[in-house]
């Protein structure tokens, strides 16, 4: 962290005239703009986070009446009740299984595909990449109806229950993240010198061994980024989860609506549950976000 940090930390000391080696010697106008913009955005971002945390610690009568910035009394009861009001643990496990399986599978499949596109020339390559990429722009609603029908009819004719099962959801989710994953990994693999795996091939490695012993280790940041993205996509998906699941396979995305009963909405429990399902994923994301930016830089943004 060399010199550029200094001017902004001690703005009053830098006159701006001296213009040091730093490529950007920031004048006051810039520093104030920066402060204002960053403060406003921080407030905007953190407002719901504050509401989520503070409301999750309030007793029910406190969230049913007028909003108060400061809770009248703190309680952890919502965090205990959330598990009984709805079967949150089951939803949690369902989400974990679905998102985990979709992530692992989509990363593996994306690695194979991206390796093929990045390292080989073959007929149909362009058709493949264009098709895969363009599916990302199509509205999910377009696939929802037919996929629903396909799953129902596969179930009727073969007895393989895809509709309502975790398997069906996994299958669906892993294709959601696939286009982005393939796209990003192609870019990432392209940025890894070809000499590396070609040398391995010359040394007698098979292409698959070259992929896993040379290319994959070199592409770890890109692969982590893709995995993070795939997991988040699956963890947060609502549309297909709301149509394709039943009581036993319901994921968090749908299950969280259970705190709204006919008589009352247990807002403190809703907020507590939201926090519980968010903390693992936000923590994981913040830990790995460096990889995401690194992956985006090499892969998506060229």
């Amino acid at each position, binding site marked *: 962290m060399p010199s550029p940090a200094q001017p902004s930390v001690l703005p009053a000391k830098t006159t701006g005239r001296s213009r040091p080696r730093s490529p950007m010697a920031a004048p006051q106008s810039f520093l104030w703009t920066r402060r204002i913009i*960053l403060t406003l955005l921080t407030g905007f971002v953190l407002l719901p986070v504050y509401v989520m945390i503070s409301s999750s610690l309030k007793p029910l009568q406190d969230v049913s009446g007028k909003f108060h910035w400061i809770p009248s009394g703190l309680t952890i009861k919502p965090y205990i009740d959330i598990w009984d009001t709805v079967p949150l643990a089951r939803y949690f496990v369902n989400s974990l299984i679905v998102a985990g399986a979709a992530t692992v599978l989509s990363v593996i499949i994306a690695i194979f595909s991206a390796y093929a596109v990045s390292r080989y020339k073959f007929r149909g390559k362009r058709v493949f990449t264009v098709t895969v990429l363009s599916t990302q722009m199509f509205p999910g609603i377009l696939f929802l109806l037919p996929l629903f029908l*396909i799953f129902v009819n596969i179930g009727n004719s073969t007895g393989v229950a895809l509709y309502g099962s975790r398997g069906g959801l996994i299958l669906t989710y892993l294709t959601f993240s696939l286009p982005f994953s393939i796209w990003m990994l192609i870019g990432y693999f392209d940025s890894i010198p070809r000499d590396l795996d070609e040398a391995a091939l010359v040394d007698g490695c098979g292409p698959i061994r070259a992929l896993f012993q040379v290319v994959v280790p070199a592409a770890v940041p890109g692969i982590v980024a893709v995995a993070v993205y795939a997991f988040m996509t699956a963890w947060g998906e609502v549309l297909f989860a709301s149509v394709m699941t039943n009581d036993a396979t319901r994921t968090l995305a749908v299950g969280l609506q259970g705190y709204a009963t006919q008589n009352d909405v247990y807002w403190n429990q809703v907020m507590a549950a939201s*926090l519980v399902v968010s903390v693992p994923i936000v923590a994981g994301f913040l830990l790995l976000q460096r990889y995401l930016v690194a992956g985006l830089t090499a892969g998506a943004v060229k």
Partner: protein
Amino acid sequence: MTATVTTDSLTEKSDRVTSRGSGGARRRLPRIPDRIRQGGLPYLLLLPAVLLELLVHVIPMIIGIVMSFRQFTQFYINNWGGAPWSGFDNYKIAVDVNAPIGEALLHSFFVTCVFTFFAVGLAWLFGVAAAIMLQENFRGRGFLRAIFLVPYALPVYAAVITWAFMFQRDNGLVNHVLHDQLGITDQPSFWLIGDNSIYALIIVSVWKGWPFAFLIVMAGLQNIPRELYEAASIDGAGIWQQIRKITLPSLRPVNQVLVLVLFLWTFNDFNTPYVLFGKAAPENADLISIHIYQSSFVTWNFGTGSAMSVLLLLFLLVVTAVYLFITSRGRKGADA
């Protein structure tokens, strides 16, 4: 380099460029054995992805198009071949703006356009501003960067449910601030029904969406060579000039992709309105994806729903094609 690469070298340019740098070493390769070894390998590697794409995207899309030409209701769910053909009837119903269904679809389309314009515009603006302000290192930069990514990381339903709570009329934060604390509104307003719902929707969408713009622009900024700034600095350009003359123009290709992606995601967004409003959105915030969902799964009119989906797809294809044409022409013009 000869035999193996002939098939479609025309289509290759873009993804070969990055590997060119290492060109010197290519000569060592035993090309002929390589070709024999390759065989069907690339196809084998692609097979899982192709099968999945077929099952989950391509085939459903074809079925969706076929369904849009049939009179498809819930009675045919278990026997989809049995639904009678109806030609273009579903499309006629969908676009007949004098009848209730077509009128509602057109209204929903306009609502979606307005929503998308503001949601994408603001998300993009916030993302670019934040990324540029965080480009230079200063104390707290890493912390702010992490904070700004929180909305992106939060599961959409958790985030949107929180906003739904904040927009509650009687116990929400928004009315508490606007009415009780600032006295701006005469009485507590409804935010999730009625005319205000579009504002609520835009705010939530921007909150959830701008960190993605921030992330992409941040990644894009890392590709701007530092020497450009140094040179400009030596020439006496201040920081505002550097932003205007170097940063923003260098971001243009990134911005073009970013805006397109944001547009497509926002236009198709289902999660935000669905969690915010439930299955039936208020008229003023009746986004097209919710509208189609409603037509299909609530009123069980799959045929019309499919026709609406296909129309939506056509619209997106046209917009994307026009956008890509304009931006690529712009880029060529800039290069020349």
